[in-house]
């Protein structure tokens, strides 16, 4: 898994946005809004982590989430971002 190149993560108050740079608009137009969990997942993929590794990271970060729930969230968000072409295999 890897992130589409030339995309930038921007913090907007309590939210996050993934925005293409000028070069990135050749491959993707528009913006994607992420909450904090989405941001963590985005950064995890950017670091080269697999889905289960990202889920473990979330469990360590957020005490009130179990591994199954975290993995479910990761899979769901990764699937959505893959459909948009922002995460590549």
């Amino acid at each position, binding site marked *: 898994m890897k992130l589409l190149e030339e995309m*930038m993560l*921007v*913090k*907007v*108050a*309590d*939210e996050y*946005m993934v*925005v*293409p*740079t*000028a*070069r990135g*608009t050749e491959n993707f137009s*528009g*913006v994607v*809004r992420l909450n904090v969990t989405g941001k963590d997942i985005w950064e995890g993929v950017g670091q080269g982590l697999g889905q289960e590794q990202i889920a473990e990271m979330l469990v360590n970060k957020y005490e009130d989430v179990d591994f199954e729930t975290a993995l479910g969230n990761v899979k769901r968000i990764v699937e959505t971002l893959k459909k948009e072409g922002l995460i590549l295999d």
Partner: protein
Amino acid sequence: MKEILAETSPAKMLCGAQKIIQDKSYRRSSHIVSAQCEDGTLLFHTLTGAMYLFDNGETPEDHRDYFIKNRFLVPEDFDDNAYADGIRTAARVLQPKHRHITSFTILTTTDCNARCFYCYEMGRKRVNMSAQTALDCAKYIARVCGQLTDKGEKTTETVSPVKLSWFGGEPLYNAEVIDIITSYLAQKDIAFESIITTNGLYLDADTAKKARRDWHLKSAQITIDGTKDVYNRTKAYIDKYDDPHEIVLTNIENALKEGIRIFVRLNMDSKNADDLIRAVDNMTPRLKGKGDCRFLVAMLREFKGKINEFDTEEAAAEKCVALLKKIEEAGFDRELKLDRELHVNRCMADNDGAQVLLPEGLIGKCEHFSETEIIGDIYSPERDVKLIESWKKTLPPFSECEGCPVYPRCYNLAKCDWTKDACPQSVKLIRIYNLQRQMQRAYNDYKSASN
């Protein structure tokens, strides 16, 4: 309640509809300016560009869900300024990269025939651009503006016309440079237009004619510091004239006749504030109806951005608003359209499509820095990229920015002497006043279009 202006497309894309959270307390966004009109109250969102009319005593709170979605109402604990910064950062990232340099501020000289006491260039070296350097600048502009191919032929690509801004010193003190540059560009069939910042003393009838014809001069900004005696004393021209004030006013009339738009800049401090009101009265019969002439007010302040001359900020704002009202009554107000766009650049300094060409053929990023902040020269493609990027660094909000309705319009560059301190209260009040006038005009336009 009526929508007068919808949010802009970039704002719609970037902000989106705000989610409504049940059982959450909401308050009005701090980025809203209100203005009264004959039909009620106008509310304008300075980040999204949306404007609504509230009549019959209605408020956004009466349409809670609708105005939560469009961000006129925000959660109690919402950080308005941080949100605006994030949106503008995203907008900036989305901005198309400049492929060409199309905007040039050219200092034909750093010398000047006036000795204004407030000039920030006082004490600097007086350097004239030579004829050879002018020609080299013209060739440089032709190379980088994108209108010619590498072989020097006109490109089929759609490119903006070159925008030239003549600056100085006093740019007309070395007008030959302007002739050389514009003549070369015309020869190469490069589309260009220009504007000038000048004291106007040398903008006589022949020069105005030539400026319109050969320099493609669209507008000139000319400073008037007061009535005759105040003006002549302030300018302290080094050449002896009987009445430079009269010469400049005549030159303004000539330039208007040639179809050049004139911005009369009224530089104000506490000493000439009342005199400027008289100056507007004196100029009105001469300039009214003679062409496209507009007056603008500039608060004189030390280059560090602090107003020293007025006892209080409120006193400064009061005098400035009085002058703005006088200008409006006289019919010389700028009639600026309501600016609804997301502000992602401040000026030439953080705009990759703009450069300052200095008399020695050096290249800078800010017209106020003629001896430092050099990023390269017209002879070499090497650029100081680190220095260029340093100009884009912005400051975090000042404590005074908390709750400021015009914060989304501010873009404080860390290196800019005008913005590195928090703006004085008077400047904020003037900005809001101008915005309110623009809102009222936008509403009148809406009404006219609807009828």
